[in-house]
C-alpha cells in the first residue's frame, strides 16, 4: 500500500514539531527516518498511525485519508511505538492473543499466527513469562511481535532495534528486510549503519523539515560533489616536492598532506574531472612508487552532520 503525505504540519503550542512535510512511500519500500532528537520523527509516526491529528495537511494510505477512515487505516498498520509500551503484568502469549483479537484476527487462524510470531521473533523460551519479567531485548521482541501479529500491509517502527544485543539486531534487521519486500515499512533510528544496511530510501528531517530524500547512494553522490583521492607515494623524502608536483596537475584542485601518515596526501579534483590517471602517469614519469590510491567516499555520518547542524 502506498502512503502519501501532503503538507503535514503539527504544532505543540507555538512550536512547530513538523512543518509542512510531504513525501511518499511505495509498497515494497523500506523507508528510513533519520534526524536528531526532537526533529519530528516520532510526531510524524504518531500522525501516520492515527494517534494524533495534524494541524494541517493529509496522509493518504492507499485511498483512505487519516481524517475520514481512521479505523480502516489502523487495521492496516502494525505499529511499534517509541519506548515500546506494553502491559507488564500480562504473560506474553496472553498479550499477543489480546492484540490479535483487537485486530480482528480470525479465531481459526489465531493459534497459527501467534505461533508464527513467537517463532519469528524468537520468543519461544519466554512465551509463558509475564512481560514485566523479560529483559529489554525480549520486550522489544514482544513489541515487534504484536505489531506484526495481524500480518499488516504497513509496518511503522519507532527505533525497532533499541535495546537489542548485536546478534538480535542482525536478526531483526534481516527480519525487517525480508518482510519489507512485500510490505511498506517506515522505521526511525539513530543508528546510521542500520539505515545503510536495510533501507531502500532515506529521509532526513531536521527541525520539522525534510532536508534530504533519496537512496543512500544518491545522497552520498549529492554530498560528495568532487572526487577525493587518498594518495601515498614512497621513495621520495621531499614532501613539498610531491605536494607541488601534484598541485601542478591540470585536474587537481587542492592537495592536503595527511597529518599522521607519512607521504600521504588527500587530492581533491576539480569539479567534473578525475585525476587518477594523471597522478599515476606523474609517478611513472618521476619514478616514484605509488603504494596507495583510493577514492574516499563520503560517509552517511558526514551527510547527516552536514544537513542537521
Amino acid at each position, binding site marked *: 500500500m502506498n502512503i502519501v503525505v501532503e503538507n503535514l504540519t503539527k*504544532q505543540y503550542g507555538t512550536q512547530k514539531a513538523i512543518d509542512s512535510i510531504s513525501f511518499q512511500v511505495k509498497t515494497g519500500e523500506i523507508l528510513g527516518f533519520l534526524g536528531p532528537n526532537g526533529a519530528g520523527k516520532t510526531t510524524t509516526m*504518531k500522525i501516520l*498511525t*492515527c*494517534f*494524533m*491529528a*495534524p*494541524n494541517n495537511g493529509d496522509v493518504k494510505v492507499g485511498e483512505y485519508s487519516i481524517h475520514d477512515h481512521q*479505523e*480502516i487505516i*489502523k*487495521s492496516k*498498520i502494525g*505499529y511499534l*511505538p517509541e*519506548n515500546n*509500551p*506494553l*502491559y*507488564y*503484568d*500480562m504473560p506474553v502469549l*496472553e498479550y499477543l492473543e*489480546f*492484540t490479535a*483479537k*483487537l*485486530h*480482528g484476527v480470525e479465531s481459526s487462524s489465531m493459534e497459527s499466527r501467534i505461533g508464527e510470531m513467537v517463532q519469528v521473533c524468537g520468543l519461544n523460551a519466554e512465551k509463558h513469562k509475564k512481560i514485566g519479567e523479560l529483559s529489554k531485548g525480549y520486550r522489544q521482541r514482544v513489541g515487534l511481535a*504484536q505489531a506484526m501479529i495481524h500480518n499488516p500491509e504497513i509496518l511503522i517502527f519507532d527505533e525497532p532495534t533499541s535495546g537489542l544485543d548485536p546478534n538480535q539486531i542482525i536478526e531483526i534487521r534481516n527480519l525487517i528486510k525480508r518482510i519489507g519486500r512485500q510490505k511498506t515499512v517506515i522505521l526511525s533510528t539513530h543508528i546510521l549503519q542500520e539505515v545503510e544496511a536495510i533501507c531502500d530510501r532515506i529521509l532526513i528531517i531536521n527541525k520539522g523539515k525534510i532536508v534530504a530524500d533519496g537512496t543512500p547512494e544518491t545522497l552520498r553522490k549529492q554530498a560528495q560533489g568532487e572526487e577525493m583521492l587518498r594518495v601515498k607515494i614512497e621513495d621520495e623524502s621531499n614532501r613539498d616536492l610531491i605536494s607541488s608536483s601534484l598541485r601542478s596537475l591540470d585536474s587537481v584542485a587542492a592537495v592536503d598532506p595527511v597529518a599522521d601518515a607519512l607521504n600521504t596526501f588527500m587530492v581533491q579534483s576539480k569539479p567534473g574531472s578525475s585525476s587518477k590517471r594523471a597522478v599515476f602517469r606523474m609517478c611513472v614519469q618521476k619514478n616514484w612508487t605509488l603504494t596507495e590510491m583510493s577514492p574516499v567516499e563520503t560517509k552517511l555520518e558526514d551527510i547527516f552532520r552536514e544537513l542537521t547542524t
Partner: protein
Amino acid sequence: MNKTWIIAVRELKQFFDSLIAYILIVLFLGLTGLFTWLYDSDIFFIGQATLQPFFSVAYWTLFFFIPALTMRMIAEENKSGTIELLMTKPVTDWVIILGKFLACLLLIIIALALTLPYYITVASIGKIDHGAVWCGYLGLILMSMAYIGIGLFASSLTNNQIVSILIALLIGVFFLFIFDLFARNSAGLIGEILDYLNLQTHFESITRGVIDSKDVIYFLSISLFGLILAETMLSKRNIVD
C-alpha cells in the same frame, strides 16, 4: 461491541491477576457482613426481616471502593504509554472507555452477587419484602454505574493514580452530601436543582422499593456524563486549534 468485550475481559482479568478483585471482594463482604449481622444496628437488633442495614453499608463502602478500582484504569495507561498502543489498534475511543466501564461494573456485580446468601438467609428467617430487596440491588448497581462514570473521568484527567482517586472522591462527596448541604440553604429553582443532584434521596427512594424513572435517569445520566467527559479527555489529543 465485540471489541468492547475483549477490552473488558482483559481489564477484568487484570483485576483478578493483581489481587485487587479478591481484596475488594473480601473487604466488601467483610464490612457489609459485619454491619448487617453483627454490629450496631444489625438485623437482629432491629428485629425485622429486611436488608436495609446491608444497603446502607454498601452505599458507603461502594463510595470508597469504586474510585479505588477506577483510579488505575486510564491514569496508568497514560503513564506507561500503553494508551498509545491501545489507541493505534482499530478501536474507537468509545470502545476503550466502554470496555473499562464494563469491567468495573462486572466486578461490582460479582461482589454484589456474592451477598445473595444474606438475602436467602434473611428470607428464610422472616417474611421479607422481595420487591424491596431486588430494588435495593438495582439501586446499588445504578449507583455503581454513576460512580464508575465519575471514576473513569477522574482517571482520564491525569497520569497519577493518587490524584485520580482524590478527584473521584471529591466529585463523589459533592453528590453524596455537599449538594444536599447547599440545597438546604438555597431556595427556589437553585435549591430544587441542588436537591435533585443529591444522590442519597434518589438511592433511598429506590431501596424503599419505588422505581421512579426520575431516579433511574439521574444515575444513568451521571454515569453517561462521566463517560462522555472521559472520552473527550482521551480524544483531546485529536483536537487541534
